[in-house]
């Protein structure tokens, strides 16, 4: 495997990595945390605590027997004041455990470093850690680390690309938790039986690449290498990353493991590297807080369940009235309607923008310029898809391979007519699914 001369189409979406040079700050425990029990793709957890219970840091508060699920732990010590239902960022109704923190942060007694001796105990430890894909998808990691064809998996790719503008939390993780990333990657490689590991980093983070190169050399680790990616969007998307490193085309619906690859986000790996040492589950998260409405943009480690306004208050509060707040980056992040929402495991950024920076551009007529086609990593024709969607033509949508779209937003970004192409692809997929076209 070597670097590919050919690259998939990509765009220059700008970097805005304003917070990259600043050391992460740890946020003090807020008065109240609201911990969602739906923090992963798959089944939500059932609460294991009730109103009035006292909980400690790291204590299991939600779990379920469903296959695609991950347990949830308390991020603070304190008293449960209620189990509530709250509208989540993606529109569903989530069960929320509200805990009033006593700020003593007493650690739960049963917490100890996991005993990992073989593959099943490794998978069990990953599940018990509460780990989900921290790159944004929140897919349960223990399922990803337990592929059916484990003997065919030869490569682990640690994704530290961080191609989204503004976000620097993975960058800070790589600089501040370098050893944990290496330890976590080695452990994962050992139990997945992969021969070669890559830490993929965009070339706009030379300090992170240099630090890994130096530490890997010092420790004599030869089966993990850094891989320099172009600093363009969306090089960190899983399917793009696999092509860039292995040269294999990963169509939608194909599991990376089928191509012999497991991809894991660098923050997930760093967390796991820490977890095998102290056994503290996933209860806090490093996030980039930025945007022109935030007084002091910086990276913050906050307890999971902290409300967004508390986190922003720690960053000096709002400098001007926020109009749009994003969970995640500006390209794929989700706009939320309230700053009272709690932080969840897969948040890697909270970006607050003023009215002036968050305008929704007016759509004009398509001029057929083809920039969307040139921007699409998978060579799709977003303008054709949009026309097919407007006619609700499921067959045409399917012929134009709408299902291959990963909604990276590159087409919408480059469109000079400001058409919401990526959004129409998302709706187009629903049309195809409804029509039942395979």
């Amino acid at each position, binding site marked *: 495997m070597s670097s590919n001369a050919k690259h998939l189409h990509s*765009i220059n*979406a*700008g970097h805005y990595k304003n917070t990259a040079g600043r050391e992460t700050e740890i946020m003090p425990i807020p008065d109240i945390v609201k911990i969602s029990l739906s923090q992963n793709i798959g089944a939500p957890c059932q609460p294991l605590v009730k109103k009035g219970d006292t909980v400690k840091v790291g204590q299991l508060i939600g779990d379920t027997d469903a296959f695609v699920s991950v347990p949830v732990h308390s991020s603070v010590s304190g008293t449960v004041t209620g189990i509530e239902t709250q509208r989540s960022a993606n529109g569903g109704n989530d069960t929320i455990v509200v805990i009033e923190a006593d700020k003593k942060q007493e650690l739960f007694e049963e917490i100890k470093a996991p005993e990992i001796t073989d593959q099943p105990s490794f998978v069990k430890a990953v599940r018990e850690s509460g780990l989900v894909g921290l790159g944004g998808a929140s897919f349960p990691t223990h399922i990803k680390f337990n592929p059916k064809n484990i003997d065919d998996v030869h490569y682990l790719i640690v994704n530290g690309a961080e191609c989204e*503008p503004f976000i620097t939390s993975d960058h800070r993780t790589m600089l501040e938790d370098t050893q944990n990333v290496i330890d976590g990657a080695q452990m994962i490689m050992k139990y997945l039986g992969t021969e070669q590991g890559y830490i993929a980093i965009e070339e706009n983070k030379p300090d992170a690449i240099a630090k890994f190169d130096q530490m890997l050399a010092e420790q004599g680790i030869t089966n993990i290498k850094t891989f320099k990616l172009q600093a363009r969007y969306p090089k960190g998307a899983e399917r793009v990353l696999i092509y860039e490193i292995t040269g*294999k*085309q990963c*169509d939608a619906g194909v599991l990376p493991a089928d*191509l012999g690859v497991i991809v894991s986000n660098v923050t997930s790996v760093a967390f796991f590297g820490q977890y095998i040492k102290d056994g503290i589950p996933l209860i806090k998260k490093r996030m980039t807080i930025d945007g022109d409405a935030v007084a002091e943009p910086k990276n913050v480690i906050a307890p999971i369940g902290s409300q967004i*306004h508390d986190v922003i*208050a720690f960053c000096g*509060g*709002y*400098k*001007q*009235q*926020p*109009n*749009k*707040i*994003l969970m995640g980056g*500006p*390209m*794929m*992040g*989700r*706009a*939320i*309607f*309230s*700053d009272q929402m709690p932080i969840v495991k897969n948040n890697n950024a909270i970006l607050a923008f003023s009215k002036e920076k*968050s305008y*929704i*551009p007016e759509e*004009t*007529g*398509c*001029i*057929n*310029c*083809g920039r969307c*086609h040139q921007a699409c990593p*998978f*060579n*799709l*024709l977003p303008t*054709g898809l949009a026309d097919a969607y407007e006619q609700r033509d499921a067959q045409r949508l399917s012929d*134009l*391979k709408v299902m*291959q779209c990963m909604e990276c*937003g590159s087409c*919408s*970004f*480059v469109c*000079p*007519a*400001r058409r*919401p192409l*990526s*959004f129409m692809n*998302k709706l187009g997929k629903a049309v195809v699914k409804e029509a039942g076209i395979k």
Partner: protein
Amino acid sequence: MDNNVYYDNLTVSSSPHLVTGLDTRKTMMMVLIALIPSFIVAIYVFGPRVIALTLVCVAASVIFEWGYNKLMKKTQTVGDLSACVTGTILAFNLPANFPFWMAIIGCFVSIVIVKMLFGGIGRNIANPAIVGRIVLLLSFATQMTTWPVTRLATTDATTGATPLGLLKEGHMADLPSNMEMFLGFIGGSMGEVSAIALLIGGVFLIWKKIISPIIPCAFIGTVFVFALIYYGIVGGEYSAIHMAIFHVCAGGVMLGAFFCATDYVTSPIMPKAKLVFGIGCGLVTMIIRLWCNYPEGVSFAILFMNVMTPLIDNFAIKKFYGGAKKNEK
């Protein structure tokens, strides 16, 4: 600011939440900038009437679009500057001494009939400026082919001839040198004369990634190779390579290749379809020039290929779409 206030009515919209700075208006602005070099050469060669005719065409185009939108109670679209581009390119396709009122008729055809009646920007099936020119050519053949002498000419004549006209009539001895053709000190439509000025504009557009180089390269390349083969077989006073360069610099090939054939709306999106489109333009141009009554064929070639565009694009989509190269096993 008071930080005890919660915000729970924030704006929600679909991602992405960033867009590039380049919009339709800026794209059109780039095209206008790219037309400046040949505008300057035209003024130098034909005098100040170039400025007047261009201004009349731009103003008429903008007013027609504005008026149409007003009348039909549609969203105003003149701000996107595409009418300015159409007006300018139409003006560049006219002789410098062309009557203003006829030019205004051309603008009416371009903007109202070809563009707005088909649904406005992005919906027209043929290039507005090209159709405007063809309508004027068919309606006012005399005025459209009565070329003023250049200010640099030393004769006393009041009308000049285009190199392609001379070629058609067999006045081989009167043909200007290739260097004169390249620089543009020749008779012809006012914006078409200078190959070098159009080339500068075209390279600027390619450099700014406004247009893809595929169509102009395929168009010009086809004209060149076609002429090379034709004159190689037929022979003549000049060498085949001389005549090939002559055909590339003569008439509307440069203007057509860089500014008309590359019109987004009426050219294909898929890169391979662009190649077919460019080659088609070159072929039709040369067939008209060598075997038909008209000395010049660029406008007809582009119009013909405009109409073919959906066919070529659909073919390319069927054949090459989706990029999913199968993995080698």
